[in-house]
Structures are given as C-alpha cells and as structure tokens.
C-alpha cells in the first residue's frame, strides 16, 4: 500500500518536472526566435520607436460619432445642423457639458464666444461662427423660469423611520 503511494508521488513529481522543462524550452525557443527576427531588440528601446500603422476597423470609426435618440453620444450634444462645427471648435478646451448645461440667447452666446477669444485662447471661428451661434441659439435657448420654479421630478418613496 505504502509502495503504491510512493510510486504515485514519484510519478507526480516526474510529471511536474516535465512540465517545467517543457515550459523552459518553449520560453528559450521563443526568445531565440525573437532575436532571430529582430536582432536589434528594437522594441525594448523606447527611443525613436519605428512608425507603426494600426488598422482601425471601419465600424469603430463610425461609432466615434454615433448618434442615439438625437444625441451625439460622445459629447451629449443635440444632433442638429452645426453639430460637427461645435464639436470641433467648442470641446477642445472644455467639456461639452459646459455647453449643454447653459441656455442663452444669440447676443449672450456671442458674448461668451468673445470672452473666450479675448481671455481663454479661443481662435477666430471664421465662417463657422454663424453656424455655431445658430446651432447654440436653436438648440440651447433660454427657458423661462420665473422668480421660483415648482419642484419637478420628485422621486416619491415611503419614509421608514
């Protein structure tokens, strides 16, 4: 009985040893193969990495500007004429959330653009300015709130004390 157990244990150890040896072999073979293919070990040098071309799947490219329920998913902006001009000019420095939170008339949207140009390094928008202002006024106009609004979107729940 004891002999049998001993034998089983020895066999187990031999199998373990074999696995380790095989692994080492594969690893060494792998390294040798790598050095054969790439003798300068280029990818271990971070200096001046060679130009790499990555194929971007077309589907991902389409996803980048995905629209869902009339909303540009990546930014949260409303899909409408001028969207791309707004994305390209207004979301470089700050989040689109700063746009979507605000509601202004034409005069005040323009004043905001001027302020950003004068103090925040915003560039001259050229012909895009009209397109952008029109987009903002159409999609983010001021809303009447009065002196105090009623409470809305109340989530009712039973109070457990």
């Amino acid at each position, binding site marked *: 009985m004891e002999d049998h157990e001993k034998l089983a244990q020895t066999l187990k150890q031999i199998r373990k040893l074999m696995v380790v040896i095989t692994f080492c072999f594969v690893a060494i073979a792998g390294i040798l193969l790598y050095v054969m293919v790439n003798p300068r070990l280029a*990818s271990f040098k*971070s200096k001046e*990495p060679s130009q*790499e071309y*990555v194929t*971007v799947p077309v589907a991902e490219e389409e996803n980048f500007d995905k629209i869902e329920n009339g909303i540009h998913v990546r930014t949260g902006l409303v899909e409408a004429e001028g969207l791309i001009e707004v994305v390209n000019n207004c979301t470089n*420095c*700050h*989040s689109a*959330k*700063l746009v979507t*939170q*605000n*509601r*202004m*008339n034409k005069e*005040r949207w323009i004043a*905001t653009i001027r302020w950003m140009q004068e103090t*925040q*390094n915003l560039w001259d928008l050229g012909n895009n300015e009209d397109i952008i202002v029109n987009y903002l006024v159409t999609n983010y106009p*001021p*809303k*009447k*709130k*009065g*002196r*105090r*609004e009623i*409470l809305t979107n*109340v*989530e*009712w*729940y*039973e*109070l457990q*004390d």
Partner: protein
Amino acid sequence: MKRRKFMNRAVLGSATTILGTDIVFSSFMPKGYQPLVLQQPDPFKMFNKDKGMEVLNDKPWNIQAKAHLLDDEVTPNKYMFIRNNGLIPENIDAGTWTLTIDGESVKQQKTYTLAELKSKFPLYTYQLTLECGGNGRSEFDPPAKGNQWTVGAVSCATWTGVRLRDVLEDVGIKDDAIYIGYHAADVHLSRDPSKEPISRGAPIPKALQNETLLAFKMNGEAIPIAHGYPLRLVAGGWPASVSGKWVKRISVRNKIHDGEKMTGTSYRVPCNPVAPGEKVNDEDMCIIESMPVKSLITYPKSGATIKLGEQLNIRGHAWAGELEVSKMECSIDFGAKWTICPIEKPVNRLAWQHFSAIIDFPKKGYYEVWARATDSSGVSQPMLLPGWNPKGYLNNACHRIAVKVD
C-alpha cells in the same frame, strides 16, 4: 502632431498621478491606444466620491452633492463638491513643495517648505463652511452662464493647518498692504503655461482672521488631490474660490488683487441692484465678500411619503458667511405660518449650525417643507430668488422638500 504627442504625454502623466502608480511599459503601448481608465474616467472612483454625486462638468471637473447627501455634521470627502476652474495639477510632490510669500507689500520675500510651515507655526483645526459663489445658479432667470449648480456646492469639513496670519507676521508686511492674492499649481484649460486658471484672494482683515488657514489636512487626513493637496488656503464663509487650492505663492498686495477671476464679472455682483437681464458695466460690479445666510434640509430626502398621523422629523444645516445664524424657521404652507426650529451654536466661528424639527401635518395631501434662516444682523433668506446678477451668484433662496401625507 507634436501637440498631440505632448497632450498624450500630459494625459498619461496625469493618469499616473491619479492612479498613484506608473503605467508599466507605457512606452510599449500602441500609438493611439488609451488605457481604459482614460477612455472612461470614473470620477467617483478617481476622487472617492459617492455615486449619488452629480457630475456637472468633466473638463474641468465640477461635481456637486445633493441636499440629502449633506446630512453629516462634518462633510466627509465623498460628499464634498468639487469646483475647478482649470486642470488638476500633475505630479505633485509634497516633499519638494514650497510656499513663497511675495508682493509689493512684504518686507522681504520668503519661501517655506511644507515641513518648515508645520514645524515653525502652531497648528489649528476649524470646521469651515465653503460654498461656491455660484451655488444655486441654475435658478436664475434669465439664466446665468457657467456650471449650473443647484444646491450641492457647499461643504463643511474640518481643516487643519497654520494661520496665514502667523506666516504673514513672520514674513513681515508693510503698512500699505490691503489685499492678498494666491497663485496655484493648477493648469489653464488651454494648457497655456502663461495663463492662470484662477488667482483670487481676500482683503487683509480677512487674511488675518484666526480661522484663515494654510491647511495641510482635511477631516484629519491629507487633503484629497481634488481639494488642494498638499496645501490649501481656507477662508470659510467667503466664496469658496477665495480658498485657493494647490497654493504655491501668496502675494501681499498694496492694491486689490487683480489676478484671474478677480476682475470683470467673475465673483462680482452689481454694486446697485439691477433688473433681471440688465447689462452691467464692469466698473459697476463689486467683489463678493461674505456669503449670505442660507440653509439646507438634509433629512429626509425630498419625496418622502408618510401616513396621516405620523410625525416627520426633519434636520439640516444653516450658515451665514461671516455671521452666525440666530434663528431658524420652518413652514408647511408656503410661508403663511412659520414655526421656530431649534438651532445649535456653531462648533467654531464660520462652521455651519445644525437644526431639527418635528412636524405634524393637519390632513392628507401634498406639502412642501420650507426652511428659513435668519442671521445675527436680522437678515433672512428670501423665499423667491434674490437680486438677479449677470453671473448668477449668491442665490440663497429658501430650500424646500416635497412631502406627501397619505
């Protein structure tokens, strides 16, 4: 192309600060590949904030609490609002961090390491109310430009540090000193190194108050990065923008500090009241100093339903800028009748005060519980929006919660 490379590096740099670890083999990462954390930054994890907090802006980061999240007597980090004007500084090293005191009105320019500040001056701890000047902006009509804070841009944590006064006395300030202004390590949104996102300050009397600290700790621990690690100026009761984060330099000025966001319409309101929407010239705008009296019902959360005959326990906090709250009242009939709610004394000057009340409802139906605080000079919160101003500051209108009795 160069710019992109720079941006990428900058972003990776900030990722390592935020993650607190180096991205191993980051130079092996394929070009154009962004590590997962940068693709979908989870602000709640990144800043240790509760999931119930509301992100108003992710560049720069601006996050607010909700009334019911502010129930703690001392606000923990997870419920503390974040207001940034620029980008959070990268690669902060507290070991090499220095604070320089300079300006026209110092007798000598002097620089301290954090260790010197801590060993040279006595440490003090105060609980201090910090409220964003624009808290409540979302209610103004016509709407005011900026982050649309509702009620959650206020906190009252404990801050530990040295008195600014002790440091200024050690440096020596001239008789013509009238203002201090801070300069900090945060980065302008455009990444233009010649621009400061914000550089505000306070008149000398405020700077010399006992409670005005150069703080190292918040709630007994190192200040979280988003709240100004490793050094923050804390001036309770004034717009929180006076409490500069990541402070590197304090200038003692012989004129009103003219740093970024001190001028124009920033943190200023019309010196004389104006009609809603009226144009106001810059020279007719006055700098906000003490914040006005205000209160918040933090329990229960709005929307509570109770049975007829049950009493409703409510509680919350009230604060009054430089002053103390002397009276607290509640109403369940839109201000037709007000009932006094007991209010506690503050633990120290400039800390918020706690109130509570037990409310009976006469019959079934929809109610709103309104709370109104009155400060020690007799000024109360308005039920309607206070005076309109171009940037939507200082909305201290009464807070209310909806309650239904079945």
